[in-house]
């Protein structure tokens, strides 16, 4: 099956959406949202990545095998970061036996 040619119109719409999202994330960062600063910034970055990946990189039109390769990369990165955070946030909540070296 030959991959369809994506229309110029689609590329322009995706490009404008990316610019809007970039402006939005810069604008939102001028407010202090506490811990939500990071959450909102990462959500917008992920939306931008999805737009670039699906349309500029044509993942929307790719067979399952290619998508599996992409998902694998992110899955292992997710494992790495998730387990590091599990360590960092629980390190001090495990009581140490008295008298054992730190």
């Amino acid at each position: 099956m030959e991959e369809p040619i994506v229309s110029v119109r689609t590329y322009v719409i995706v490009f404008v959406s990316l610019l809007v999202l970039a402006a939005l994330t810069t604008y939102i960062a001028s407010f202090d949202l506490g811990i939500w600063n990071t959450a909102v910034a990462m959500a917008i970055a992920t939306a931008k990545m999805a737009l670039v990946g699906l349309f500029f990189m044509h993942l929307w039109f790719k067979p399952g095998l290619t998508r599996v390769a992409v998902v694998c990369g992110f899955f292992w990165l997710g494992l790495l970061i998730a387990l590091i955070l599990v360590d960092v946030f629980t390190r001090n909540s495990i009581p140490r036996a008295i008298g054992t070296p730190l």
Partner: protein
Amino acid sequence: MSDNVAAGGPDINLPAHRHPHPGLHSHFETMEQQREAGTLGIWVFLATEILFFGGLFACYVEMRAIHYQGFQVGSHLLERNFGAAMTFILLASSFTMAMAVHSARTGSRRLLVVFLVLTIVLGAAFLGIKFTEYGQKWHEHLVPGFNFQPTSEQLKGAPAGNVEMFLCFYFFMTGLHALHMIIGIGILTVMTILGLKGRINADRYSYIEVSGLYWHFVDIIWIYLFPLLYLVGGR
């Protein structure tokens, strides 16, 4: 079986429409399969690149969780307008790159070269701003290890070592990203030459498609670096 087939050449008994495309390598059945194998290959490479940068991202996440205040203060030391300008420039370069691939597929050699040159110019502009920013950091004495003497006004009470660590992440992550940009500009220069020679066309656009995937990947890395380094400090 004739000798011709054994040697990997076309079987002369095939009907005309079954004769292989001149660009088809002998170990593939069809052009479509050859192209899919090529894009799968570059995607597997990009998956390893995700993990290559991923080590730095994971380290950043851990250190920021532990030394939160130092990272907040460090983020405030970066010039947000520079970061935003670089983001817009890189997104525009991704758009021109996508248009270059599109031009190759629709068979317009002139537009292909124009969009490739635009992409290279935008990439170079990005690097220009990046190195200007590095120079500014040097003048502000904010380069870890070599020239790090922050004022107490800059530190805002955060431990100097933690701010220095944030700036280490800043230089390593943006430096590795800049290195990828320089390699990308090199690849696109080769593509421009191939385009000018007419070696890229509607039948043979794998080179440009694969180069485009690499360029977009580098853009995606910056999409995450920009908020993580410049924005998360809040104001």
